[in-house]
Every structure is written in structure tokens, then in C-alpha cells.
């Protein structure tokens, strides 16, 4: 009925998680938490990652829920500057590697997972053309890969932006424009969304079979396992691979929303999100890597996934400071 759900956030038996569209969990895992803690979990998903953060910022005076899940390092500063979060040190933070803890001092946000944005390649294509797949950013400039890569618009797609940030991390604030000029000269194609790039243009995805003609695409390091998912019998290897030298790391954080109606429940939920149960459930639900070192990754990941040893990173403050300008520069450089 009208307004029935609106006031339920005041009810301390419910804890509300605000997130983006990609949030998922096993029903059983959530149910276990509910049973154990006595809280009922409500999930609100508010668009893609950027939208969700912006919505949270806009409604910060009267937040929609208690915990926010899914602010990543490219947007972190925006959330922190807006004063979105109440500091809370979640249980289990010690098991999280230090390099993921980007707000180590304040504990306003808690790292929950990470993933890498990398160039994926279509194995079949490269076998067929007797070509070695590219491995690094610089490989992409080579003439043998001319016209093979499709990426996303930095202005409208978060993988697109992440890839750009990766190139900036690799080539420095001075050198990245040059890199993109060359990449453009080498025939990079840009489309507006990941869906389009991956499903329509990339020849390696199941969806793109028969129509996509780009064997290289900017996607997630976890995309190959996803391609295998559900296949019976399980193939020897994934149809796609990851160029491990082209990765940019995205770390996702959660935090207790300032003004939460059920702060106690929020804290319990945040603890739960960092618990081993949840962390081990995450990979197959959201295709990300758990933040906890001691969380076991599923076989799908270990078998078909790639190990990214040294992903590119940038400090959230640097990103926050330059982001809009970088995107503008990138647009006029690549799109015009």
C-alpha cells in the first residue's frame, strides 16, 4: 500500500542496504544473517554504480537506508567529501590487505571486494589467426592488433573510465594523451556501453558470436569465468582470456550511512558483509574478488579466471581531482 514501505526503515527490526543494480547475494546466505541477527534485510538498488552513489549523496539528509554497498575507488572521494558515512570499524577488517584499505585512518568506508577491468580477448580468433594475444597497454598499439579493440565511452560507462584511468596510471598524467592518440590511430572503436561492446561487438562473447567482429574488448577480469558459467560439461578453458597487463583495479567499499535509522543493525550488516560467509558467496554472485585474504575463491575463478599481479591503481583523491577534466580531454581526443 501507499507509503507502507517508506516508514519501515524506522523500524529497528529491518536493516536497509542501499546499493547499485549489480548487488547480488545468495538468498540462503542473507537468510542465515537474518536468522542469526534477528534483522530483516531490505535491499534497495538504485541504478548503475555512479547513479547509486549520486542518489545517495542527493538524499543524504534523509537517507534511504542504513548501509551503502558499492562505492568504488573512482567515486570514493565524492562520497567521502559529501560526508555520506559514519565511521565504523567493521569486524574482520584485519583480514583485508592493506592496499585495499583506502580510508585506513577514518574507517568511514570498508573495502568489501575488488575486481579488475582488463582487455579480454577471443581465444578462437587468436588461435585461428596464429597470433599471440596482447598482454600490456603498449601491446595494444602494435600494428598486428590494428582495428581489433573495442572499448567503452569514458563519459558514459564505468569500465570505459576505468580503462582510461588504467592508461593514465601506466603512462602518467603527461603521457596518456599521447598513448590514446596512438591507440586511436591503431583503430580503437568506442561504443557507449559495456553491454554494447561486449554483447554486440566482441566476437568472443556467446552473445556476440556471429555478429561481433572485435576480438579484443575492455571488460572485467571475471568475464571469462562468467562465459563458462552454466556450461555443461565444463570446458577445458574459457573461450576468452584476459590481457593481464592492461588491468585497472576497482575496489568496492561499503559504509554506514550518516543519519541511518537503524545504526545498530547497519553495523551488524556491515560486519556481515565482511564476514567469511558473505565474502565467499560474493564471487559467483557479483563476479568480483572478495576483499578478505582468507576467503576461498570458487573453483570457477581459480580454474578459468586470471591472476592479476600488478594492476594499475590511482589514489582516489587524484581521481576525484582530475576525473571530469580527464574525461573531457579524452572525449575531445578520441570521439571528435
Amino acid at each position: 500500500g501507499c507509503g507502507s514501505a517508506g516508514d519501515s526503515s524506522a523500524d529497528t527490526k529491518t536493516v536497509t542496504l542501499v546499493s547499485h543494480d549489480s548487488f547480488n547475494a545468495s538468498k540462503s546466505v542473507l537468510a542465515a544473517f537474518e536468522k542469526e541477527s534477528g534483522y530483516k534485510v531490505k535491499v534497495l538498488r538504485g541504478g548503475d554504480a555512479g547513479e547509486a552513489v549520486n542518489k545517495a549523496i542527493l538524499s543524504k539528509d534523509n537517507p534511504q537506508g542504513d548501509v551503502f554497498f558499492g562505492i568504488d575507488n573512482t567515486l570514493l572521494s565524492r562520497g567521502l567529501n559529501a560526508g555520506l558515512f559514519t565511521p565504523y570499524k567493521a569486524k574482520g577488517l584485519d583480514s583485508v590487505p592493506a592496499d585495499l584499505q583506502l580510508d585506513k585512518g577514518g574507517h568511514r568506508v570498508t573495502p568489501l571486494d575488488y575486481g579488475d577491468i582488463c582487455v579480454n580477448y577471443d581465444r578462437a580468433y587468436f588461435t585461428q589467426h596464429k597470433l599471440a594475444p596482447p598482454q600490456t597497454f603498449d601491446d595494444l598499439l602494435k600494428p598486428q592488433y590494428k582495428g581489433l579493440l573495442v572499448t567503452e565511452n569514458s563519459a558514459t560507462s564505468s569500465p570505459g573510465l576505468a580503462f582510461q584511468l588504467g592508461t593514465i596510471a601506466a603512462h602518467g598524467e603527461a603521457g596518456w594523451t599521447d598513448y590514446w592518440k596512438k591507440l586511436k590511430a591503431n583503430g580503437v572503436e568506442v561504443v557507449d556501453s559495456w553491454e554494447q561492446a561486449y554483447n554486440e561487438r566482441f566476437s568472443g562473447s556467446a552473445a556476440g558470436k556471429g555478429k561481433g567482429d572485435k576480438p579484443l574488448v575492455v571488460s572485467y577480469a571475471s568475464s571469462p569465468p562468467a562465459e563458462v558459467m552454466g556450461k555443461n560439461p565444463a570446458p577445458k578453458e574459457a573461450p576468452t582470456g584476459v590481457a593481464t597487463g592492461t588491468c585497472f583495479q576497482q575496489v568496492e567499499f561499503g559504509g554506514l550511512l550518516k543519519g541511518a535509522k537503524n545504526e545498530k543493525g547497519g553495523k551488524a550488516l556491515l560486519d556481515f558483509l565482511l564476514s567469511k560467509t558473505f565474502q565467499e558467496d560474493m564471487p559467483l554472485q557479483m563476479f568480483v574478488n572478495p576483499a578478505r585474504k582468507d576467503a576461498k575463491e570458487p573453483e570457477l575463478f581459480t580454474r578459468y579466471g586470471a591472476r592479476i599481479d600488478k594492476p594499475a591503481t590511482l589514489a582516489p583523491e587524484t581521481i576525484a581531482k582530475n576525473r571530469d577534466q580527464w574525461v573531457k580531454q579524452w572525449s575531445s581526443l578520441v570521439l571528435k
Partner: protein
Amino acid sequence: MRLGLMAVPFVFFAVFFAYPVAVIVGRGLKDGGQWQLGRFGAVLGDPDVLHVLWFTVWQAAASTALTLLIALPGAYVFARFAFPGKQLLRAVVAVPFVLPTVVVGSAFLALVGRGGLLDDLWGVRLDTSVWAILLAHVFFNYAVVVRTVGGLWAQLDPRQEEAARVLGAGRFAAWRKVTLPALGPAVAAAALMVFLFTFTSFGVVQILGGPTFSTLEVEIYRQTADFLDLPTAAVLTLIQFAAVLGLLALHAWTVRRRESTLRLVDASRTARRPHGAGQWALLWGTLTVIAVLLVLPLAVLVERSFAGPDGFGLVFYKTLRDAASADSTFAVAPLDALWNSLAYGAAATAIALLVGGLAAAALTRSRPAAGPSGRTPMITRLLRGFDGLLMLPLGVSAVTVGFGFLITLDKPPLDLRASWWLVPLAQALVGVPFVVRTMLPVLRAVDGRLREAAAVLGASPWQVWREVDLPMVRRALLVAAGFAFAVSLGEFGATVFIARPDQPTLPVAVTRLLGRAGEFNYGQAMALSTILMVVCAGALLALERIRTDHSGEF
């Protein structure tokens, strides 16, 4: 009484549109208590923005013209010819309306993109060209023209054209001189709607236009949702507003000069079997256009939903069912999503019909009775202005409305942010203009003397409405209901924003599936899209039945 009728639409419009939009725009323009009017200069001085504005306007104009050109013959065929399968086809042409643009973009790419059908056959590629955008816009909006214009057309007295014919007018001349002027208001209404849709086109332009083409809508979305640059978004919104207002004024002006009462007859009596080579050619031509432009892209989706990893089969439908019982919040039971969609759709349609119907009734009565002219009562002018304002939601970005809701409807008594009703209310915002626009041309064409005839037979104003206006406008009303329902089924921009995640609609579920790698996700998305299409066609067909199942009632 007019004001009474107007109260509901007025409150609805004020609370669920004007207030949220005003607040979000105000928030953007008023930074730290200061009006940031300097922003206008900055944004308007940006050549990129001007370029976007120019592209937005011209592609919308071109899309509208092309849609009218292609769909008007279709409207004629549907209005005046009787042929088997007509009702089904009338439902089918409206199906594109409900499909998420992502899905449609993908289907279109399969036809006109690289490696698409055209490419295979003739080596023609239209993706990243404006043509793909224009054709997709025709694809979406064909039904708008066919159904709104065709609805009135079927009710026009064919003897008017006969009168022209015996005065020496050829078929086409008779159409141009007699029928077209009579259809004028309906054509204008359809053109206005198509223009507004294409003017605010988002998904189609993004997918088919590539990053090089951008509309104001895309810019507003980007500034709001990606950059949180509310000042720029506000300025762009106001620019869009201004453009839409100008258009509405133009529309009102052209329509007011053309509106007249018409001879309306019972629509079921005007359709004939085609007669002569010309008419058969027209019928087949229309069927071909529908087959190529509308059915083929839909067929691509259907084909993909069946093309499993091991050949054709129901595997995606089956996994869709299995996934629903899987232990994950990701999977959506298709039946649940379907049910959510239908429930939202029914509620949104009801709201749109109520609000739009009341508004249309009030606006009809606002016309000064045939008689002494020159005096335009204040109230009449007020209502006329309101007529235009009701169209504004079509010209405002879904993201603006969504963000507006978020920051305004959060306090009692209007704490609706997480309410189930917020979704149908937002969807009705798009449905209301449809209802008003489809009904008004017909209501205004009803000869006032028919109402008088009812009054002298003892009918009260309410009975007059029920007994005279309603039967006349029934067709339009059902067209409007169909659209309101389709809009709701297909609405994505606002729904994804405000729908509760435990109650995703079919398009939301489809989009979620498409957002993930993996063969099954994609196949299931196609399967869900197919279900969406079938449901839409079924619902519209059911509405068609209501339309014809009335007979000699006492």
C-alpha cells in the same frame, strides 16, 4: 465544474511533476543560497552544447517527418480497410513501444549494423549513421501515428470524401483537401508526441548513434547521473524545457486554427475490403513496411531467444525458469517480473486514464460554444495553458524526474520513495499526455449538437459524457489505454530508478541480464524480451476485443 474536473489532474501534475522537477532544477541553479545564473552563459556558450542542441532538434524533426511519411499510409490502411488479421497486426505494431531500448538497439544492429542482414545482402551498414537512429525512431513510433490518427480516421464520415469526389477531386486530392484537414488535430497530436519522444531519445541514440551523436537527454543524464553536475544539468533541463514549450505553443497554435467539429460515424462501418489495384498495392505496401521495419527486428529477438548453444530449442526459457529457483537474488523469476510489470502497468494505466480522462473532459468543455466569439474567458485561457503543460513530462528527462522524486517525495505525508505506488505514478506521468493527446482530437471533433440532443432527451451532463462522448471516444480511449499500458510495460528510465529491487519489471530484468557476461544471461534476456513482446501484444489484443465487443446496447 470545469475547475472541478481539473482539480485531480492539476494536483497530480503539481505534486508528481512540477514540484520535484522545480526542486531538482532549483537545487542545481541555487548553489549555496546563490542563484547561479552565470551558468547559463557558460553552458550556452559551449559550442559542444550548441551542437548537441542542434542535433537533438533536427534529428527529432527528421524522425517525426519520416515517421509521419511512413505511418500515415498505415493509419489509412488500418482505418479504412478490412483484412484478416488486422487486429493482431494493430497490436503487433505497438510492441516496439514496450521494448527496452537496449534490446531494440541490439535487434536493429543485427539488421543494419556490421554483419547484419543488410550488410550480408548488400554490404550496407547504417550503424553509427543517422539513418539507423531515424529508422529506429520510426520503429518505435509507427504505432503512435497509426493508432492515434487511425483511431479518428476510422470514425470520419466517408461521405465527406465522397462529396469531394463528386466535385471532381481525385482520391488523393479528396484526401488532402477534406480528410487531412479533418485529421489535422490528430496528426498534429501524433506528430507532437513523436517529436517529443525523439527529442528526448536516449537509448536509441546511445546505441545506434555511437558516442558521436548525442542528444540533450543524453547530456542531462550524463551530467546528473554520472557527474552529479546539477547546475549544468539544470541549465540543460531548462533549455530542453524552453524548446518543448516553444514546440507546444506552435502545436497549440496550429491545432486551434484547425479544430472543428466533424461528422463522426461508427468506426465499425467504415472499413471495407480493398477495392482496385491501387488499394491492394497500398495494403501490401503497408504490410511490407510493417514486416520489414517492425516485424523483422522483433523476429531477430525471437530467433535469438531460441538459438541455444546446441541449436534451436527452449533452453533459455528453461534456464530462465530454473534460474528463478536458484539460490541467488540475481535471478528473477520471469513470472514474478511479468506479474510486477502487469501490476505496475494496470495501476499506471488506471492513473493515466483517470487523470488524463478528467483533463481531456475539462479541456473539451473549455472550448467556447459555437457562437459569439471574441471573448475568451480567463478560465478558458488558463485551461489552454494547462493543456500544454500536461505535455511537459514527455519533454523532460526521466532522470530529472527520478532525482526530483528522490529529494522531494521523502517527507511525510509524501514519503513515497520506497512506496510501490511511486512507480505507476511516475509511469503515469508519461501516460497522461498520451491519454490527453489521443482523446482530445476526438472529443473536440464530436459535434456539440449531439450532446445537446442527449440533453433534450433528459441526459444530465454526466450522462451526456457517458452516453455520447464516451462511445465516440471509446476507440481513442482504448488506444490511449493501450499506450499508457505499453508505456508502463516498457518504461525503463524512471522505473529502474525507483522500482523496488525485489519487484523488478520485465525490462529491468532484461537489462540486468544483459549487463552480465555469459551466454545464458544473454539468451535469457532475449527470452524475457520475447515474453514481454507476447504479453504486450496479448494485452493490446485484449483491449481491441473490448473495443469491438460492444453492440446494440439499449
